[in-house]
């Protein structure tokens, strides 16, 4: 029933149906006062309903003039838009390669792995790398870091920021570019200043924050990455009602996807790992269940291969499945070198 699709309250819908208005076309030629009289509601309410109904019917028109569907883009336009948005580098060349250049803006990327893999390190590295100036191939933007576990170490951010600036200065020296701007004037404190840190202590706060982000980002338009570390934590303990959990998580996922699309920013969700009984054996899999697996656009799994850290693209609409080694050093995430191995418990 067409009237059933309108975003109006249940009692208004009930009144419309009992008065005999079931299709949108039946509402199209009515005036607000007539409708008000029929349904026994106020004129304002009737005007609201008619406004909503007319919006609904416009979407269904087969020939609407300029656009077939409101708000759609052609694939060609999208391709050009993609080229305009640079990707956020991870500072590890191999990892950037399998990601197609880096973390993509306008998409939600989920990164998961066992404890100790370097998920928080990767999150911090991205929060720093998004601030690389446009002249050096970065986005020159700010970052939002949402911490649910309390694993954000400010000293580490400082270390990674200093290393990033060092790399940029080195690059400056090597290329001998004569920018009018001259020397790199960034200081690690500038980088720290541009990371907005939220500490979330319960799942209610997490939902509230996800709702609030839209407003926050409209006020801080230069934020280009939102990192949630980790999205799982508050949903894993003490959650008896699994159906509720699935609903809440899908709500969060949808809002984050909308955020990414509307504001053109990258959303990075860090996830934990759990064991699952598949095909007769226990295997590791990312937490939060099967329904959550559908919520993210891209999925990267970090795992140990022997003594090296590897990243694997598990799911992506445009990237092929591939693995790449990376390492966590004092400077942050870098390319894997043969000496950077896991400390053996020997």
């Amino acid at each position, binding site marked *: 029933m067409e009237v059933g699709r309108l975003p*109006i309250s249940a009692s208004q819908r009930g009144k419309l149906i009992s008065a005999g208005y079931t299709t949108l076309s039946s509402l199209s030629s009515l005036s607000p006062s007539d409708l008000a009289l029929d349904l026994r509601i106020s004129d304002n309410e009737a005007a609201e309903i008619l406004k909503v109904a007319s919006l609904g019917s416009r979407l269904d028109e087969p020939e609407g003039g300029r656009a077939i569907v409101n708000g759609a883009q052609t694939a060609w336009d999208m391709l050009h838009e993609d080229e305009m948005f640079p990707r956020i580098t991870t500072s590890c060349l191999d990892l950037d390669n399998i990601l197609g250049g880096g973390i993509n803006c306008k998409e939600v990327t989920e990164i998961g792995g066992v404890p100790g893999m370097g998920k928080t390190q990767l999150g911090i590295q991205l929060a720093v790398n998004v601030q690389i100036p446009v002249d050096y191939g970065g986005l020159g933007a700010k970052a939002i870091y949402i911490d649910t576990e309390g*694993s954000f170490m400010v000293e580490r951010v400082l270390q990674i920021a200093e290393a990033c600036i060092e790399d940029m200065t080195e690059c400056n020296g090597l290329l001998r570019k004569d920018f009018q701007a001259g020397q790199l004037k960034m200081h690690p404190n500038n980088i720290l200043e541009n990371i907005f840190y939220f500490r979330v202590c319960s799942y*209610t706060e997490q939902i509230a924050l996800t709702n609030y982000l839209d407003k926050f980002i409209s006020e801080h338009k230069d934020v280009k990455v939102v990192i949630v570390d980790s999205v799982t934590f508050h949903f894993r303990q*003490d959650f008896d009602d699994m159906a509720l959990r699935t609903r809440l998580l899908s709500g969060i996922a949808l809002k984050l996807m909308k955020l990414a699309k509307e504001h053109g920013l990258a959303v990075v969700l860090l996830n934990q790992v759990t064991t699952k009984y598949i095909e007769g054996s226990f295997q*590791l899999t990312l937490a939060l269940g099967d329904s959550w697996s559908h919520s993210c656009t891209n999925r990267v799994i970090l795992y140990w291969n*022997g003594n090296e850290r590897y990243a694997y693209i598990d799911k992506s609409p445009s990237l092929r499945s591939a693995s790449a080694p990376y390492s966590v050093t004092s400077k942050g995430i870098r390319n894997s070198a043969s000496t950077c191995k896991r400390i053996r418990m020997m």
Partner: protein
Amino acid sequence: MANKLISEIGLPKSIANIFAARNIVTAKDALSLTEFQLMELLDVGWAEVTSAVAHISAIVCPPYQSALSLMEQRVKNEHLAGHLPTGLKGLDEALCGGIPFGVLTELVGPAGIGKTQFCLKLSLLASLPSSYGGLDGHVIYIDVESKFSSRRLIEIGAKSFPEIFLMKGMAKKMSGRILVWRPASLSEFTERLQQIKVSLHQNEVKLLVIDSMAALVSGFSRFGSIFKEIKSTISLALPIVFPKSLPLPSIANFTDWAHSRECEQGIPRQHPLGWHVSFIKSLAEFSRIPIVVTNQVRSQSSDEACQFSFQEMEGNQGGSCKIWFSSCCCFGSSLGSCCNNPSCSRG
């Protein structure tokens, strides 16, 4: 913040009344429903629901800070920007100053490596006056396995800081700041934790040590309580008589046996200490003190999960990955920072 009452949030009167009428009292209740569910329940339009939810979210949402102001705050207000130096130069450097405040630090290692000794030293360091690099505060030491030895503590103090400890009355003062508590059961531990939260501020507690977390799980199982009895009997140097009918293994591998019996019952859905770890973490953050817990190392049987599904397809490139897991392995992700004893050896 999650339990903030809707009535205190400052929504327009009309919608606040509707929330109350439908028994949605706290922000948590309201945010646990999707916008569509709220529309159905409250019988209001889309615009009203979204604006109410946005209002509630803006109030309940945690405040933000820039990472810079976070750092400056800690440098200004806390001892060494929020670290307790351990006195081990390499470790302090690696930890950017020492054991960090506000997070949970886990000491893991096989038996006999020195975890309890480390905890004793840390307790001492926290009780020292600030002129000697300490935190000048009280310490709560939760001793699950009855391993705390005050004689050893005084010995450590006298040897490491002779200038203070040999001064009159100082040994008494320093060790007087360390409160040792031995929980008899998991429920007692749970209860006491909540009391500790209240008393942290009042008593100027600067460090909390839990030795050990693994024992809380295995030690308090129905077999573990028997073991504790035996252990305390041993310390009294009384002879122990085993009745012939009781098929008890030798004391040495009792804990393993008890643990293996637990595992036979199937892998539990949620870890029994899940709530406790979250609570302790929040305790650490809220009071900005370091909390140190110790954990044991067990070997993992090779048929347990240690791979992702795509790894099996790729073939075992790195050979079978033998991972040393502690009994509380699922805490690894929930612990703020993990401290691996650098001189760990295969025992």
